[in-house]
């Protein structure tokens, strides 16, 4: 099949960018979207041109590296999938497709479709971890946790940190990302010790990095490839209020 592409090209962090036209001719509808970009890149390299930069690694929806906005939607039209798992059969012969990077103040463009997501790392550094050695006997089976709790925690631990939630939000808020982490850790015994300090520190860091606030639009949940529930945000808010009470602020 043949597709018309409008792809964001930007030479470097400070440079001006613009959408440029490309055609992918002779691609198979069985291909994934990223394979199609590989084909475009191969032909650019063969013509002596600069290939289009984009992040990807596993191409299985696991690593969280791929990050494209397809026709205005982070990760494209399929619900609950990363763009590396989007297939061309989702499109029609002759379609025109726009491909852009995540856009958010906290995620500056490095080149073309690649953005710097280290602001997420800084949020983690601020509090997204477990810090105690749970101690006890050296027996792998020592931590005992009811199965239901572990399953809820597991759902929120499914976050791959891709940043689509931020890219979809008109406020560029990192609330879904943070709340997934906070739910996950506050549900497990390993995460109790720092429970209140964590939520405050993460939210403060997100503010400092230029992420916006949450106005409950739900766009984040709609694009999340792991379908992380927006109910985590409510849990995070409760944790935050409790943290403020505990701290006596």
């Amino acid at each position, binding site marked *: 099949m043949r597709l018309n592409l409008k792809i964001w090209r930007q030479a*470097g962090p400070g440079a001006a960018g613009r959408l440029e036209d490309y055609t992918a001719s002779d691609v*198979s509808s*069985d*291909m*994934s979207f990223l*394979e199609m970009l590989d084909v475009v*890149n*191969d032909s650019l*390299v*063969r*013509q*002596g*041109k*600069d*290939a*289009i*930069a984009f*992040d*990807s*690694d596993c*191409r*299985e*929806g*696991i*690593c969280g*590296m791929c990050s494209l906005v397809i026709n205005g939607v982070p990760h494209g039209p399929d619900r609950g999938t990363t763009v590396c*798992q989007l*297939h061309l*059969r989702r499109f029609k012969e002759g379609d025109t497709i726009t491909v852009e990077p995540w856009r958010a103040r906290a995620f500056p463009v*490095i080149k073309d479709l690649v953005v710097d997501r*280290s602001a997420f*790392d800084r949020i*983690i*550094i601020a509090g997204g*971890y*477990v*810090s105690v*050695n*749970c*101690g006890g006997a*050296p*027996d*792998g*089976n*020592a*931590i*005992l*946790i009811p199965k239901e709790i*572990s399953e809820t*925690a*597991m759902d929120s*631990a*499914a*976050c*791959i*940190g891709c940043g689509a939630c931020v890219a979809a939000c008109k406020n560029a808020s990192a609330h879904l990302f943070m709340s997934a982490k906070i739910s996950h*850790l506050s549900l*497990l015994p*390993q*995460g109790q010790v720092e429970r209140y300090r964590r939520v405050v520190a993460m939210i403060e860091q997100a503010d400092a990095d230029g992420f916006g606030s949450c106005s409950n639009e739900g766009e984040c949940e709609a694009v999340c490839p792991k379908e992380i529930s927006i109910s985590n945000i409510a849990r995070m808010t409760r944790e935050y209020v409790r943290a403020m009470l505990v701290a006596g602020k």
Partner: protein
Amino acid sequence: MTSERVDVLRTDILILGSGGAGLLAALHAFDADSTLDITVVAKGLFGKSGCTRLVQGGYNVVLNREDSFERHFLDTVKAGQFLNDQELVWTLVTQAPRCVYELEHTFGCFFDRNADNTIHQKAFAGQSFDRTVHKGDLTGIEIMNRLSEQVMRRGIRIVEEHRALDLLPDASGRRIAGALIHSVRDGRYLVVRAKAVLLATGGGPTMYRVTAASADKSMDGIAMAFRAGADICDMEMVQFHPTGLLAAASLMTGTVLEEGLRGAGGYLYNGRRERFMERYDPARMERSTRDVVARSSYLEIMEGRGSPNSGVFIDVSHLGAAFVEQNFPGMVKRCRSVGLDLARTPVEVTPTAHFQMGGVKIGPDCASSLDGLYVAGEDAGTVHGANRLGGNGVAESTVFGCVAGDAMAARVTGERLPEVDMPLAAAMVGRTRKSLSPTADGRDIYEVRGEMQRLMWEQVGLVRNGRALAAAAARVRELRARAEDLRAPGSEMFNPGWQDLLNLRNHLVVSEMIARSALAREESRGSHFRRDFTDTREDPVSNIFVRRRNNGNDENDEMDLYRKPVRFSRVRPDGSMGGAVAGAPEPAPLADQGE
């Protein structure tokens, strides 16, 4: 001319790669001595890149009192067909319980539970006990997320989207003193000086046409170690996973459907609806080891009994759709993304290049033959012998990551920072810079790559013979020379075409090692199957080593091959006890964990 763009960074411990091995090494070194300056470099994004994250199946570990170290040890050595370094295997099995304990208690991982709250362990093929720990089928994400959070919170220096180009010796050439790093993002060069360097770039046989390893890997670690002169061994031992998803024209081909599907009782059918494993391993059937299952599938396909798209079928529908959906949600979803219903219908699969058992030869403390260079994870060789058991890969990268971190922390204490050979670094920068040219047409990069991928798949793949191997080795050598002259077009900034060329050069060096070692092993053993030598006959059983011939010529480094008999330090192939544990009391599970 080059110096203005080469920065120098000093660190105590330099870790190349941020998979399970690299992260645990960083954590262990830091926790041993928090005053150490540690730097982790990753070609991809920190915490996201690498194959550890792709671990679906799980982690083999002895936790149940009815299981034992001895059983895990014997399962591993038998699967490896006695090519393993038995001391490394012993470390693997005895340290794994402690490592899983640490993952949960110190780093915050959390694995699936049984109803009584103990850690759930599931069945994996080729094992005498159900000992595979997991978190749903997304075990790798859990391990990688928790470990990278821990590295970040300790303030360990992270340098992401930077690739190591080569290891750097000191001026005398007697030890490794750092590495030359190249920013994928902006093309800058960085010389890192270090007291100890860990190679943990995670192997990954991505030079095969069908492969399941993560796309950013290109055997860089083994290629760098070779150029630096390290001893490398068992390179002919490439594991093919039997059940890579086949999705017509898509390169989704190669994506793995996990082993647990066979472990849980899945069937394999050929195009005639026969459970063909009956012909190859009637006792174990689909639960036979990977090498046997992958080769059997390949032979079925080659002999014309394959499925419509030249694969075979995996069928788990008889286990019940609800069971499959509940236990393998990731696999079900993966199939659904290409329009297939794993829970209800048979799905086409093909063997796919998955794991490199061979690698840099290491001692018990992960030290290589080069002073100052440590190696852990898939870059290291001889833990798995001729075939790796599913679930032993992540066990290896995590256990040996810990070992390497401890060893390096002990080693660098009180040591002075060695000088690096700066003229050599400058020459390497010049050579890399030459590979980019704004006027290049870049046409040949993908031709050479395509030819390599086909050659490796067809002639150095699952079924081998001497004539084809000799021809492939010679041809790969020609391609290597050709790749040296290729130039990539485009800018220094985040340039995928340039990265592809640098990857290709490393792929070709390692491809030659694989082809030459495979030619030298005139027998069949584990993953290495020779049509012209079908028996497992070598006596004494030996490891095949590759080392660079020291001719000082960068662009044309010849390789020497040599053999060393395997030392059966614990058990011999006839089942009798080897030296190390003969007469020693049988270890009980969990009794040997140290503190």
